[in-house]
């Protein structure tokens, strides 16, 4: 037990050192990096990925993966517009409905995975196409604009000087860290990822836990979509394309094992901040947006590479 704890801590310490080093280097590159305005703005920009990364940590700890989050994000965003503008629902109701649709889409994933025993990678690859296809089919590539001013408070406003969505993310972060680290549900999550058969024979409700986790993944993707629409003040069906890559990179960078059974929410938080710092720092030192994708891909492979090389003696 202490051995496991030590290993987790070790990865987070490495990550913490890496993060500090990156921050120092990036601060040296541009005087704009280390300003409150820039940092708070970065917090705003990473809130959507950060929110989805929380349930994704649970998903990957169980040994699964959810590739459909980007598509659920797009579907919820489109439906928010459709519910409000085309069906004439009041905007608050439309927001709740859009988030719930995300939850239902996530439960759909969980149902396919637990009931039909389809590997999560393939199940969510299929729903990635299906949910995005529904978003495209429903919207017919039309965008929805003209939301009322109060709606933008969620994505563009501030509470006590801090972007509103950052508060939401922090609250969700604390809840997720508490559930994974300190509750029986969290222990169940680790048990499923370490050895699913053993977890089943120990009487744990494996299927129910997975269903809840995939459902939460969809629900949070829906929430992130509503926040995103509020931030960019329009909806389009291609929103969130490739989002799953950012989310999975943050989680894996944070030390969660892609094989399951290992990982923490705090690690995910560190991975997320490191990723956003890299993106922002590179952008400030003149690298274009597409160049930063290259770096993130390379960092993803390098992080696992180093992790594998280090843990080889341990295993």
């Amino acid at each position, binding site marked *: 037990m202490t051995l496991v704890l030590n290993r987790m801590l070790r990865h987070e310490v490495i990550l913490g050192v890496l993060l500090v080093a990156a921050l120092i280097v990036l601060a040296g590159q541009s005087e704009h990096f280390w300003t409150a305005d820039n940092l708070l703005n970065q917090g705003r920009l990473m809130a959507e990925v950060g929110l989805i990364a929380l349930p994704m940590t649970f998903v990957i700890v169980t040994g699964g*993966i959810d590739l459909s989050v980007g598509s659920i994000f797009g579907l919820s965003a489109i439906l928010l517009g459709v519910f409000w503008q085309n069906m004439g629902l009041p905007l608050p109701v439309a927001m709740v409905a859009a988030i719930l649709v995300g939850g239902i889409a996530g439960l759909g994933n969980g149902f*396919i995975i637990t009931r*039909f*025993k*389809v*590997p999560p*990678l*393939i*199940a969510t*690859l*299929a*729903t*990635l*196409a*299906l*949910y*995005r*296809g*529904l978003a*495209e*089919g429903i*919207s*017919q*590539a039309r965008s929805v604009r003209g939301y009322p001013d109060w709606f933008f408070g969620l994505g563009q406003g501030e509470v006590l000087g801090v972007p509103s969505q950052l508060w939401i993310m922090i609250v969700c972060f604390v809840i997720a860290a508490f559930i994974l680290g300190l509750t029986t549900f969290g222990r169940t999550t680790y048990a499923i990822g370490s050895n699913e058969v053993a977890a089943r024979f120990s009487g744990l409700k494996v299927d129910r836990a997975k269903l809840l986790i995939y459902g939460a993944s969809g629900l949070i993707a829906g929430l992130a979509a509503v926040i995103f629409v509020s931030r960019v003040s329009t909806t389009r*069906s291609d929103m969130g394309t490739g989002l799953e*890559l950012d989310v*999975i*990179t943050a989680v*894996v960078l944070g030390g969660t094992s*892609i*094989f399951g059974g290992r990982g923490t929410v705090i690690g995910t938080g560190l991975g997320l901040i490191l990723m956003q710092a890299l993106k922002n720092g590179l952008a400030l030192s003149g*690298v*274009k947006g*597409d*160049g*930063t*994708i*290259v*770096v*993130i*891909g*390379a960092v*993803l*492979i390098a992080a*696992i*590479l180093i992790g*594998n*090389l280090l843990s080889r003696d341990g295993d």
Partner: protein
Amino acid sequence: MTTETPALSRLVPVRRWKSFFESYGQEFVILAALVVLFVGVGFYNPRFISANNLTSMFVGNAYIAIAAIGMSMVIISGNIDVSVGSLIGVLGTISGTMAVNGYPVILCWLVPVLIGMVINAGVGVLVAYVKIPSIVVTLGMLSILKGGLISVTGGAWISGMPPEFMIAQFRLFGLPSSVYFMVVLTALAALWMKYSPFGRAIYAIGGNPEAARVTGIRIQPAIVGVFTIHGMFAGIAAILFATQLQVIQSTVPPNLELTVITASVVGGVSILGGTGTVIGSTLAAILFAAIGSSLVFLNISAYWLRAVQGLMILATVLADMARRRRI
């Protein structure tokens, strides 16, 4: 009856036909779906089965079928590659840029294929020797290739390639060369997968890696080999993709990797590895092309295409899981 062994059943002629159907069941289902689609939509709108439409359908989609051959091998070996779309985009751009800059045409065709093999051999090494799961390596490669391509080229259009470079537009006996490529490569790959020791090894590794290792198959070089061959098919696909139109946009064709994976999986390649054929994946690629084209002829918005794709992959996977449970 339960004591009857499979070996015995293979000796009885009646049973042999049945087992033939069992091992190619998925291919027959797709073939039937294709026939129904062609007859049904052709009846509704005869222009669907006109030579013109069929030709443009094959020329526009043969590269997907060819990429799906390599993808099928990767999936049969128990791995996956989500970066193939980006790889095809990068190799197509390299090929087009070389052609515009006056390199010999043969080099414009061969160099991208070789680069594809080298890149994917690297992926194979990371998967087989460093033991990083293929989904992670190829997710990383996806963003490296895609981001690299766009930041180098800015997504510019390439045009002015010499006519002798446009291999996908060559015709032989009235048929576009893409069709020959698709048919010949599928046939060769199918035979090779069925009869060569290496092909059998891929099935064995995907079916049960531990058993394969104990039988003396060297798993790690085989995985690198599978990815390298997959890189070759991606390279050929990229050449056909780059030469089908007079211009190439130097970006990654959107969702190409998903279309390729879908073709493999719907074609009967089991997602759990170990089973499937490349004939199925080629048929499935044709089926997709036909569905995409038929939406136009049925006056259905093309925006629904992806939802149809998603439903099909889901239905196939569920059927596959149900069949496995019965066995």
